[in-house]
């Protein structure tokens, strides 16, 4: 049987083995949590506490400041010691709340509630209140995705378990360990949106996750959950991209500049679904997540349940993780789309799926050479672009040509730069083009 996938894409070495067999470990609480007020796409949250305030775990400290915005909660009990700019893993310095942990307090205990009597709106409100955003990395507020505008109906729900980024296994481990909880989370989304088709899409290199779901689905009796299908996809990067996943599962393409809901689709990451489950069943806001901490410079890589606001330095020091080689690159996210950090100061946020610490052995530095027009970038581009042509126009400042080549369709997956034999940072040139086009349009 040939498994479906999307056209284009690459097969990088996945390097998932070091973390996949390791047990899921719980990291201790951070002594000082650094919680940025923006961890999502949209308006930053507004601080609702001040210096000196005592806050409880899961208390709102940053309130959503618009429809496309999200609440931010304290991840520990403690005192607000400062509100100032601090380093954010992908946005540079942003306003953040520093909470010094009250060491006399244990973790908060969350009690399961009966959800049968909840209405759709009540469930959606719980999700909004809990500050849930897309946990695959983009960080789009989930309640917005669950509230399609008038006239748009979600017919197909795809649960994204592709996890195509090399090194990362946080979704894989979540699916293997919490399959039942994820199914209950999917049930909540089904109750809210009532889609016709529901599927969980997993790449075929994650067999354990597939089996975990298969087992749970066999035991699940409720009629509403019988329509959940398991779809196995041929492993390829960037399958986890929303538009690529839809193409792989259904063969349909989201129009340029459009959203999945334009063709009746909704894609939710498995991590987000789990957060929805915790928010609705336990009233637990999004204050912790699974983070893959790995890379060849790590002594003992693995998956950790980490509180939002724990800085990498904290994690390494207090949690007893050791580096056994000098790191040369510290990446928040995966090696294909993640952001290189200047140090260990950035905190884990809602969208931090992994931290990859690479030594000089894994990070080779290359100098850019002349393009030889081999068109390997054209062959792998999952959105049918001509990266080499866009690069040449962007380099020369021909923004109109760059726009005519649809640079704005680029999803920045990095497949082109990965295969480029001349080591041209194509994504960088395309990004420059995109931002210049955006400036011009304003």
């Amino acid at each position: 049987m040939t498994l479906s996938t999307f056209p284009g894409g690459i097969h990088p070495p996945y390097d998932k083995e070091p973390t996949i067999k390791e047990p899921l470990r719980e990291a201790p609480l951070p002594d000082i949590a650094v919680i940025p007020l923006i961890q999502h796409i949209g308006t930053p949250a507004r601080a609702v506490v001040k210096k000196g305030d005592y806050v409880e775990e899961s208390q709102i400290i940053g309130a959503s400041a618009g429809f496309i915005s999200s609440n931010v909660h304290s991840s520990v009990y403690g005192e607000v010691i400062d509100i100032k700019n601090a380093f954010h893993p992908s946005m540079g310095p942003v306003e953040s709340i520093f909470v010094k942990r009250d060491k006399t307090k244990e973790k908060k205990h969350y009690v399961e509630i009966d959800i049968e009597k909840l209405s759709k709106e009540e469930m959606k409100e719980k999700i909004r209140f809990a500050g849930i955003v897309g946990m695959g990395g983009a960080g789009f507020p989930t309640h917005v995705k669950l509230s399609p505008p008038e006239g748009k109906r979600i017919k197909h729900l795809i649960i994204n378990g592709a996890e195509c980024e090399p090194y990362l296994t946080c979704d894989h481990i979540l699916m293997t360990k919490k399959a039942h909880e994820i199914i209950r989370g999917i049930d909540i989304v089904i109750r809210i949106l009532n889609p016709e088709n529901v599927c969980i899409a997993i790449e075929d290199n994650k067999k354990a996750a597939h089996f975990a779901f298969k087992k749970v689905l066999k035991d699940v009796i409720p009629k509403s959950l019988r329509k959940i299908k398991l779809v196995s996809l041929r492993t390829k990067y960037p399958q986890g991209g929303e538009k690529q996943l839809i193409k792989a599962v259904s063969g349909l393409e989201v129009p340029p500049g459009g959203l999945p809901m334009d063709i009746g689709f909704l894609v939710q990451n498995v991590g987000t679904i789990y957060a929805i489950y915790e928010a609705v069943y336990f009233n637990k806001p999004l204050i912790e997540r699974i983070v893959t901490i790995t890379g060849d410079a790590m002594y003992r890589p693995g998956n950790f349940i980490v509180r939002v606001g724990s800085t990498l330095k904290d994690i390494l020091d207090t949690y007893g993780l050791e580096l056994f080689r000098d790191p040369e690159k510290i990446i928040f996210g995966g090696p294909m789309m993640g952001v290189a950090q200047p140090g260990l100061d950035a905190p884990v946020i809602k969208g931090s799926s992994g931290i990859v610490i690479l030594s000089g052995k894994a990070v080779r530095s290359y100098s850019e050479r002349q393009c030889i027009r081999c068109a390997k970038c054209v062959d792998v581009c999952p959105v049918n672009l001509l990266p080499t042509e866009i690069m040449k126009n962007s380099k020369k400042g021909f923004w109109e040509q760059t726009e005519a080549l649809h640079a704005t369709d680029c999803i920045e997956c990095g497949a082109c730069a990965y295969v480029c034999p001349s080591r041209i940072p194509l994504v960088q040139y395309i990004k420059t083009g995109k931002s210049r086009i955006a400036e011009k349009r304003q």
Partner: protein
Amino acid sequence: MKEIKLDVSPHIYSSQDTRRMMKGVIVALVPNIFASLYFFRWKAFFVMLVAVVSCALTEYTIQRIRKKNIELSDHSFLVTALLYAMVLPPALPLWMVFLGGVFAIIFGKEIFGGLGCNIFNPALMARAFLMAAFPVALTTWAAPITLDAVTSATPLGLAKFEHVITPYTPLFIGNVAGSIGETSALALLLGFVYLLYKKIIDYRVPLAYVGTVVVFASVCYIINPVVYAPPLFHVLAGGLLIGAIFMATDPVTSPVTKKGRWVFGAGCGVLTMVIRNWGGLPEGVMYAILLMNAVTPLINRMTRPRRFGAKHGT
């Protein structure tokens, strides 16, 4: 802590770089080099040697003059030199070989700005130059060592002017007259398999090229088998295979779009057959590829891929 690197994503790369690709092409040429040494002995050896020396010297000198980093290490000059040698007649005077090598680097490559910027295939440019300058020397064919003769006509020449079709076995093995690296279909096909296996070339151009020749030749052959040679003969004789496998696939001078590669290959095929059947020369591969090189920018422009998510035709 050592210095932390802050480059943009992606942070990992495929192991294939320009240097490795060039090396791959050289490895793919090895069977062909052996075949040419076997059939043409010292003649082939000296042609290759002089070609490599002249290309290396020219490249080095030009880069010194232009005060660029000496990039001989990317092996691209070696690929140019070897491919250039492969399309030369075995008995070509060595000073002509040297002159052509200088031409290949200067006018084939560096004048456009160096590797990646040229419009025409440098090896074929140099051969076209020699063809114009020394037409007699370029059409005098020393017979391979396995034949008991000093000179001999090429299979395409024989077919065109004397209507003699060379049998397939010698054509396939390569003991016929011709340029040193074009005669052995067997050696070229081995190189082709290697190039595909190592993902150095894309299958589209060679397939479209040879496919078009087969279709074109078949139609002609069906219409008039007395005048026109059979399709398999057209595939095995002359420079078609080296052209389709090593010359038309030159990344720099062929289209970047997938559709464009089909168009490019088909165009090469049609032009080759037009020249072979109705032109003044027995062989048309060189001019066909050079002409298609010239329209490559146009092909790129006209075959842009369909935008992801857009309806067909937009």
